[in-house]
């Protein structure tokens, strides 16, 4: 078999291509972006459609439409992207899938590049759909292929849950022969029109499918039970990449603990029962929240058994797992370590690039606000969130995609003045248009600052749908008074004029939109490198 070196994200993407993919949709977000980056490059050869979407909800719906048409579809995003897509996601469990529909949700335990570390497995259980959680790159490839087959067979979307360390790690993958794409075959009106009468029947179908999903997980070779007949003291349940940390540390001797390795959900109850019956102490090792541990332990624990894991304090409840944390949970001595003997190493947080247009915009905004005590700057998700740090100290909030506008309006209506929203062009396209529509309708007393650098910079300069002339037409189109739309260029030479104009808009009652337009430095660099072709 041919072997390729791939990121975990790329292994998933290549598997989708080989599984007969017809359509793939996504919105950029770490650690999921490279799934679509790989598919875009692969799609250049023809055979399927791959595209960035305006947000995760639209991406999900585009994939769902492809599945409705009988074709295989992939939708990928970071964990919090699934919150945005949660509405179609939850109901897709009722419509079911036509062509295989695989939902890739990449979690970020440790919050390397995220605002929370929510665990996508809860969403799969919430929707009552299968979830595959690969332990390594080969499994990411094999299980993604299997996810398409499983999805078609049971007529449900299937989630592939990744975590940062697999998504952004490289290793060799053996690939299999590609399968052709499906032919067009439309879904039935009754199943796909979720009027209450139809939805009840579809929900019944989903509930009736559950036992067969558990049986599938119990029979899956990806859920493997290794009981040590010679030792009944310790049994380990390890899921996804957590199993690697266990195998890295587990002794191979006659006293080795029994191990149930899990990658296919819903939980294989029979296998868990067998392990629990065999062992006195059960250690649950999982990346993310204590999902399996809570389920195994229940509210009252297991009589005569001890269940260890995150809830018991044997593993940390937050952050990502490490080989050494799992080593300690297995009761082994830590490896000897060195330290810098009191020499304090300064932290080096990420920061805006030298000469970044956002820096000039923040300098102007800070100065413009100087004459207005009591103001607040609500910000959003992107490179400009780094405006939180010195020397800017320019923003006071960051919650989720698009929150800046809604929060600025709510705060303004609660009495905050000046109330300023700061949002980038792509984030505005993702989730800023609807709150602006609402704010324009009531002429909310706030200033919306849109930082238009023409790209999705933080995640690697993917295309923005709401930049340049289109952005200005959107702002006007949702009802903002054209006299209250300012377009400024964030450059040091314009600083004084920009401060003056911002002050003017802050002082005027009602809604103003100030657009700072200047190309991202990374984007400009990319164009130079590729001779302007990208």
């Amino acid at each position, binding site marked *: 078999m041919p072997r390729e*070196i791939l*990121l975990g994200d790329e292994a998933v993407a290549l598997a989708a291509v080989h599984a007969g993919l017809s359509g793939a949709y996504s919105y950029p977000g*770490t*650690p999921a*972006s*490279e799934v679509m980056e790989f598919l875009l490059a692969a799609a250049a050869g023809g055979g399927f459609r791959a595209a960035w979407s305006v947000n995760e909800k639209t991406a999900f719906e585009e994939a769902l439409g492809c599945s409705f048409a009988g074709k295989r579809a992939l939708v990928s995003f970071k964990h919090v992207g699934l919150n945005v897509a949660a509405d179609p996601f939850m109901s897709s469990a009722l419509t079911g899938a036509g062509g295989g529909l695989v939902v890739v949700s990449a979690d970020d335990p440790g919050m*390397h*590049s995220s605002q929370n570390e929510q665990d996508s497995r809860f969403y799969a259980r919430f929707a009552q759909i299968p979830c595959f959680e690969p332990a390594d790159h080969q499994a990411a490839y094999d299980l993604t292929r299997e996810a398409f087959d499983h999805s078609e067979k049971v007529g449900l979307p299937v989630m592939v849950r990744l975590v940062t*360390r*697999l998504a*952004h*790690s*490289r*290793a*060799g993958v053996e690939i299999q022969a590609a399968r052709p794409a499906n032919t067009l075959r439309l879904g039935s009106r009754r199943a796909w029109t979720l009027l209450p009468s139809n939805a009840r029947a579809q929900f019944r179908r989903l509930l009736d499918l559950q036992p067969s999903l558990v049986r599938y997980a119990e029979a899956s070779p990806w859920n493997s039970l290794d009981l040590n007949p010679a030792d009944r003291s310790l049994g380990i349940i390890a899921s996804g*990449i957590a199993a*690697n*940390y266990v*195998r*890295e540390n587990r002794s191979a001797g006659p006293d080795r603990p029994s191990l149930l390795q899990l990658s296919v959900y819903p939980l294989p109850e029979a296998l868990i029962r067998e392990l629990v019956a065999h062992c006195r102490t059960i250690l649950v090792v999982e990346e993310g929240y204590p999902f399996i541990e809570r389920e195994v332990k229940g509210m009252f624990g297991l009589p005569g058994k001890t269940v260890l894991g995150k809830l018991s304090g044997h593993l940390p409840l937050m952050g990502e797992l*490490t*080989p*050494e944390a799992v*080593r300690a949970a297995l009761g082994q001595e*830590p*490896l*000897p*370590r*060195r*330290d*810098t*003997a009191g*020499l*304090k*190493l*300064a*932290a*080096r*947080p*990420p*920061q*805006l*690039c030298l000469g970044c247009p956002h820096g000039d915009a923040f300098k102007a905004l800070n100065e413009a606000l100087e004459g207005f005590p009591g103001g607040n700057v609500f910000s959003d998700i992107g*490179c400009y969130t*780094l405006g939180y740090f*010195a020397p800017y100290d320019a923003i006071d909030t960051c919650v989720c995609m698009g929150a800046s506008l809604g929060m600025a309006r709510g705060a303004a209506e609660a009495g905050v003045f000046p109330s300023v929203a700061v949002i980038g062009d792509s984030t505005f396209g993702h989730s800023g248009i609807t709150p602006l529509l609402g704010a324009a309708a009531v002429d909310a007393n706030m200033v919306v600052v849109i930082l238009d650098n023409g790209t999705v910079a*933080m*995640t*690697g300069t993917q295309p923005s749908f709401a930049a340049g002339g289109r952005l200005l037409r959107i702002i006007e189109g949702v009802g903002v008074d054209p006299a209250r739309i300012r377009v400024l260029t964030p450059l040091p030479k314009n600083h004084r004029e920009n401060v003056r104009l911002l002050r003017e808009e802050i002082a005027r009652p009602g809604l103003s939109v100030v657009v700072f337009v200047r190309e991202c430095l990374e984007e400009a660099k990319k164009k130079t490198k590729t001779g302007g072709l990208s």
Partner: protein
Amino acid sequence: MSAPARQDIILAGVGGQGILSIAAAIAGAALKRGLNVKQAEVHGMAQRGGAVQSHLRLSADRIWSDLIPRGGADLILGVEPLEALRYLDYLAPEGRIVASSKPHLNIPDYPDLEAILGEIRKIPGSVVVEAESLARAAGTARAQNIVILGAASRFLIVDEAGLRENVRGLFEKRGESVLAANLKAFDLGRGAV
């Protein structure tokens, strides 16, 4: 003497210094030798001028964890001295550091440089390389990462020819002068140890 069949390497630097490029060069050479490779990378927010690191594991046997355990790294390669020292708790008792002497000063509270370099030199077998001046001598200050790779080639379990071939692969599309400068940077780094 046959080379050992496994090596765990931490690569450290600041976003934009080319950590991932030298990780890829080593990984490529290891694959050529028939070794298994796992390489954990940092993408996203941290790449904006922040501390970045990569865990690179090479082994003839199956590699389980993507991360190197603290206290388990054979080698730390630092394209920046503070960043090299940041991962000291990953270094095994017999491990060593190969680091650039050139600080990247994009933070207000950078510690005393001599103290940093002193700590690195205290680790037996460790090497501090004048990566910036060597890179300039090779023709481009941007090649500090390749200087460090060249210096590290003395201690890596993959062979020099394989590494050079991968350096070539990284830069041959950027034009002849860029390629020549990086190959020179590799040789100057190797010569500095």
